């Protein structure tokens, strides 16, 4: 289903939860609404579902304005954060609910429910009650129940929040595959950037009720359009005085220009390890933290703090050790503008004349 949202606003009393949000979603896409908690993501989702009425703005499904349609008429499936399974019904009855409402025949219901039960890997659990299932199984039931009436749009509110970390990754992959197989347009809400990047075709970053940026995960990572997106996606070091870093002495063309530097923009090595020695600057290792698959290294360049990662394969650094640092690029911004700057020394090393 093609979805269009125009100038959507939502107020809860004095609180402006959603501010002037507009976007388009193509049929069949899997979209992640990403942002910090309390940013208005769930409100947007609930308005799409018809569970909340917009204060102003239009929601258009398939070219038809649906603002005044109740949730019953919108043809959507909704998976709640805590699944909201009917606790006095078995798995079978939960999945069959939407079909019974639509007055399908017993045979049709049975066929569809069994198909979905099999699809979601719940075969053999049809007669269990929700409290007899694990978190992951409950989520599958919620998913099957939402899909049963063949909705045109699937909305998922923090679908993985209530599941423990280990199963979460597994379920993530499963859900992505499942949605691809069913081919349904889907929107899910999450505050976990890793989750959004891994699962979504496209991400919409929502902050303080505003849509900050919409694009593919790679696009958003590579070309953040606002300082918020730059700082929210990936972990960055915030630099007040960019001119103190080598290669960026003239970066602050305008006053108040600040910088964000991602860990992977930084290369560190023991003196002499980096080939492009002329572009490096000296730094001191402050702390090192073991992060499972790599070391996180905290550096100090003069007064400036930087964070980067170092492979376990390389020689282990010690706090207090002197190292060389090469800064590949920086994300710069001021009140009017934001841009990415490559390190000029790296691109154009000092030519050597013989």
């Amino acid at each position, binding site marked *: 289903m093609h979805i269009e949202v125009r100038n959507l606003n939502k107020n809860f009393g004095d609180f402006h939860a959603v501010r002037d949000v507009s976007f388009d979603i193509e049929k069949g896409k899997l979209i992640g609404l990403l942002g910090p908690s309390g940013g208005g993501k769930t409100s947007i989702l609930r308005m799409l579902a018809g569970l909340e009425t917009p204060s102003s703005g239009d929601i258009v499904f398939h070219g038809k304005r649906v603002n005044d349609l109740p949730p*019953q008429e919108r043809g959507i499936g*909704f998976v709640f954060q805590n699944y*909201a399974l*009917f606790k006095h019904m078995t798995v079978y009855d939960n999945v069959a*609910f939407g079909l019974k*409402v639509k007055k399908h025949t017993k045979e049709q219901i049975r066929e569809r429910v069994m198909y979905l039960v099999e699809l979601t890997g719940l075969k053999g659990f049809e007669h269990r009650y929700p409290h007899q299932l694990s978190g992951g199984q409950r989520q599958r039931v919620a998913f099957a129940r*939402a899909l049963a*009436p063949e909705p045109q749009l699937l909305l998922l509110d923090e679908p993985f929040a209530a599941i423990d970390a280990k199963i979460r990754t597994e379920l993530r992959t499963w859900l992505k595959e499942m949605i691809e197989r069913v081919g349904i347009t889907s929107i899910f809400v999450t505050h976990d950037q890793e989750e959004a990047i891994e699962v979504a075709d496209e991400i919409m970053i929502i902050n303080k009720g505003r849509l900050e940026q919409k694009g593919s995960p790679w696009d958003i990572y590579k070309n953040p359009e606002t300082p918020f997106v730059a700082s929210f996606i990936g972990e960055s070091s915030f630099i007040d005085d960019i001119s103190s870093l080598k290669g960026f002495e003239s970066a602050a063309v305008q006053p108040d220009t600040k910088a964000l530097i991602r860990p992977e923009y930084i290369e560190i090595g023991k003196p002499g390890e980096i080939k492009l020695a002329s572009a490096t600057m000296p730094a001191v290792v402050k702390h090192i933290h073991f992060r499972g698959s790599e070391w996180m290294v905290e550096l100090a360049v003069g007064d400036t703090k930087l964070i980067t990662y170092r492979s376990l394969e390389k020689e282990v650094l010690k706090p207090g050790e002197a190292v060389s640092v090469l800064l590949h690029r920086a994300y710069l911004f001021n009140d009017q503008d934001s841009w990415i700057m490559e390190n000029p020394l790296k691109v154009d090393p000092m030519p050597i004349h013989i």
Partner: protein
Amino acid sequence: MRRLWITLTYLVFAILLIAPLVKIFTGAWKDGIDGFIDALTRPQSLHALMMTGIIVVIVTLINTLFGVMLALYLVRAQWLGPKLKRLLNSIVDLPFAVSPVIGGLMIVLILGPNTVIGSLFEDAGVKIVYALPGMILATLFVTFPIMVREVMPVLQEIGAQQEEAASTLGAYSWYTFWKVTWPSIRWGVIYGVVLTVARSLGEFGAVLVVSGNIMNKTQTATTLVYQDVENFNVVAANGIALVLAAFSVGLLLLMEWAKKRKEVH
């Protein structure tokens, strides 16, 4: 010291709860089975028990219906502002805070034969105060909070999400209520029904004020017991009290059972 406290606790329990029950029981059988049967088969006894029965049935029906509806609106309705909701919520408890006698008096003052509304009804041929409708109203007033207070916490606990899920699956409110909400609240409702029956069975003050306690007309079982005691007809008073007590014990057992089921679901 500890032993003393334990003994004292049991003593208070026995004096307050067990002794009266035993006394009612032995008092009712003082003149043998015939005295007990005579006390119950007097025309005024039968009439009083019938009145009590009618009041209990009607009050329980009305309270169940409107109590559940009010609980639903107070918990779920979004068109009520939070301030108005809080106000309504505290007004619901008013009958618990006000003495039943005062409740009865308010009904007499509003609907009595000398008031504007009362005389209007009287002209239309409907007597309210000193008649059955007034007694039902008085009992309704006293028992109204019970159902609301039993159902509201259950509704709050289950939250609105299951109902919202039902609505996204295409179910409208009536279907959602019976298939989703009702199974969750029904044990709370049954518990409320039992409490309402017990309370309206034993209501005395409000009914006494409103009914005028006219024998064979507006007398209920409790007000008959009162009158029998006044007339030193102790055996008869004990007999009717025993019937009421037996009902209450039965209700208590039912209540325990309902409570257990409520916790399970």
